[in-house]
């Protein structure tokens, strides 16, 4: 009954290869994210999809391409891997209601916490 799952957990590959990481959430959330955590533990957003639509696309090399086949899945494909791509990649999901749809007692603004997967440790040699 894992909420946000990622595969694989570890990925070791050589420079120049192409690899994919898969993410699935069973929380019924409508928004999914990819983050990169570097060796200093700094977290940076890479991409986000809301209902299969790309809504966040940070300054990421175009070797990285996300794909969301449906609301519950968000995959990350990386072409021509480089040494600097070595990091831990986290998938996350959240539920963001539209304006006006809110829990009683709130201001009506959408704001929901993100739930993270266990991470995929990518090592490029």
């Amino acid at each position, binding site marked *: 009954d894992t909420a946000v799952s990622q595969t694989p957990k570890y990925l070791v590959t050589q420079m120049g290869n192409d690899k994919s990481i898969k993410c699935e959430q069973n929380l019924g959330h409508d928004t999914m994210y990819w983050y990169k955590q570097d060796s200093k533990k700094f*977290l940076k957003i890479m991409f986000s999809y*809301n209902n299969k639509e790309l*809504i966040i696309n940070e300054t990421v090399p175009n070797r990285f391409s996300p794909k969301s086949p449906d609301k519950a899945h968000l995959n990350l494909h990386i072409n021509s891997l480089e040494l600097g791509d070595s990091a831990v990649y986290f998938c996350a999901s959240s539920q963001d209601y539209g304006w006006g749809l809110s829990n009683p007692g*709130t201001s009506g603004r959408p*704001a929901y916490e993100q739930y993270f997967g266990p991470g995929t440790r990518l090592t490029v040699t």
Partner: protein
Amino acid sequence: AQSVAQPEDQVNVAEGNPLTVKCTYSVSGNPYLFWYVQYPNRGLQFLLKYITGDNLVKGSYGFEAEFNKSQTSFHLKKPSALVSDSALYFCAVRAPLFNDYKLSFGAGTTVTVRA
């Protein structure tokens, strides 16, 4: 642009003592604020959030945080720390804009609780 500062890289406390992890933020408008904890080789776990309402919010594992608008702070606190609280803690902020999903994280604070 929104940002978060966690001024302490490390916090060391003795078990049973109060624990405080500091966080200040910068964002336009009223912020949405979050705390997460990361144990070694694990993903981030949500602890608590401030959206609106009472400035003191309570979360998981006995943690609480106080939103202070005048000081733009959202410090995480626990009255009596446990050795098992040793982990990496992240503060995060999100702008209160419709369909602005971006969450900006601080650099993290490593908490060590000694027995």
